[in-house]
């Protein structure tokens, strides 16, 4: 079973919600948290742990054996990323940055051995134990690499392979197809947003994506005293989602964030809000065993 925490806009406190919710839920479920914000993964920092058990994510990358290649250009024609350029005589060259590792070129090449299976490192996945009794899986894209999709998909698989009762997914911001990949198979999406015009605009997009994917959504309004929560409610209602929590701007949350100590574990009044979010989730999922 999987649920996802997402938010249209970066910096809305999505990771704070994901982490505190996970900690609050750990008593009800045997769970794993997956940080699929692979361009800027931060959950480990918020949990105060160092990433461990690194595994490389390597993708196919064509290497040409020019002694065999007949310069037919088929590989270049089929490459949707235009990662292969050909010289006037048809000699193919790869521009490694553009290559997505899909292997379409290898599939069409009719000359055995003209394309050799090279590899390129795209990033890493990690499996880190946390002091809170659940593991964290993290995907991390290598700097200079453009394609987040393979890392998202591999990190998700690694988390799924643990076979936990509940998988919590923390997605990237935005609504691109890497976010849909992270959301896929979720029973519920917790959309974190802010009541500012920017937050509302981006929050609406994530609700639209949830609707398109046919996944029920609940809304958490962060920094709820910054604007008009009524507007968020209106939009949520339009998409059949309910606002389940309002988190006011809070120095305590910032302090706990900076100290790497999840707020849900302390006695600050804000801890109650996260516990309440967790119990709404439990209720929705039909209770944990």
């Amino acid at each position, binding site marked *: 079973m999987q649920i996802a925490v997402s938010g249209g806009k970066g910096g809305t406190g999505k990771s704070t919600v994901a982490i505190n919710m996970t900690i609050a839920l750990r008593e009800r479920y045997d769970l794993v948290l997956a940080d699929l914000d692979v361009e800027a993964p931060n959950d480990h920092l918020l949990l105060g742990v160092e990433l461990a058990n690194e595994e490389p994510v390597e993708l196919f990358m064509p290497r040409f054996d020019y002694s065999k290649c007949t310069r037919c250009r088929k590989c270049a024609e089929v490459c*949707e990323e235009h990662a292969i350029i050909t010289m006037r005589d048809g000699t193919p060259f790869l521009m490694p940055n553009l290559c997505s590792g899909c292997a379409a070129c290898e599939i069409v090449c009719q000359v055995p051995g003209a394309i050799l299976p090279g590899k390129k490192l795209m990033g890493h996945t990690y499996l880190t134990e946390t002091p809170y009794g659940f593991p964290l899986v993290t995907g991390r894209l290598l*700097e200079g690499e453009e*394609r987040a999709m393979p890392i998202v998909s591999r990190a998700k698989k690694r988390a799924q392979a643990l076979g936990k009762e509940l998988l919590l997914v923390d997605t990237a911001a935005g*609504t691109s197809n890497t976010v*849909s990949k992270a959301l896929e198979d979720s029973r519920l999406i917790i959309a974190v947003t802010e009541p*500012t015009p920017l937050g509302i605009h981006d929050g609406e997009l994530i609700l639209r994506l949830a609707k398109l994917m046919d996944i029920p959504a609940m809304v958490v309004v962060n920094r709820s005293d910054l604007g008009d929560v009524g507007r968020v409610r209106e939009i949520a209602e339009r998409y059949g989602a309910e606002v389940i929590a309002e988190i006011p701007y809070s120095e305590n949350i910032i302090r706990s964030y900076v100290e790497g100590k999840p707020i849900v574990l302390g006695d600050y009044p804000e801890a109650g809000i996260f516990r309440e979010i967790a119990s709404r989730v439990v209720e929705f999922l039909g209770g944990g065993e």
Partner: protein
Amino acid sequence: MQLVIASGKGGVGKSTVTASLLYLLKDEYRFVAVDADADAPNLDLLLGVEHWEEEKELIGAKVARINTESCIRCGICQERCPYDCIKVIDGDYVVSELTCEGCNVCGLVCPVPGTITLEEVRSGVVRKTTTRYGFPLISAQLDVGRPNSGKLVTEEKEWAKKLMGELGLEHMIVDSAAGIGCQVIASIGGADLTILVAEPTPASLSDVQRAYRVVQHFRQPAYLIINKSDFNPGFTALREWAETEGIPILGEIPYDRAIPRSMSMLKPFVEAFPDSKAADAMREIAERVRKEILK
């Protein structure tokens, strides 16, 4: 000159800083602003844009479609899709349009010719307006569930270059996306320099370091603006990092409620709250940008 503002992490105030910087530079310089965060554009909102003068649809994303009539349900496409985008729904093989990368591997391996076709779909819009401050803004909005491609940003920059020619503008100021993926690479690639915005937290430091590696990859100079600089007094690692790397700090903006309040008013904070301490800091930064960068 092409100047990029990047941060690695979302939510550190990059766009609010950009909007205020644009506001402070607008009288002296002729530039076009580009919002290169096509996945979550917001510069238009921060600059109070209400309508677009021109909009171009961007067709270019591709998704595979399976013809269930001719499909023999062999499952090869599902096995070979590099991104697990093919599902079996009620016995039919179906491509999940919202995750497909359009690589066409499924089409190449399918044994029944013509069963899988790659179709071009809309990936979003690129649009242009003249802001109430007089300078033009190019922005884009990616459609929900489309591959986040650098092509959109490249398209935006092309349009911006055209405008520079037509209107005789000297500079392009690009507000890059968060993260370090294709849009950021397309933003930073071809630029003259990058201004990084970060806040003093471990998460922001880690992300800005990653963005800086992209800048280094393109061998460009970088500058740093520290936002919410008094937010975490014990945290000195950000300044130390900048010093070690030799990245000049253009200025520090203290945490100020004027900034979130100005966001709700849809105005740059230097315009909405010119007397705030954040605005003071921002004016000093703009001064250094004048003296050291735009000259």
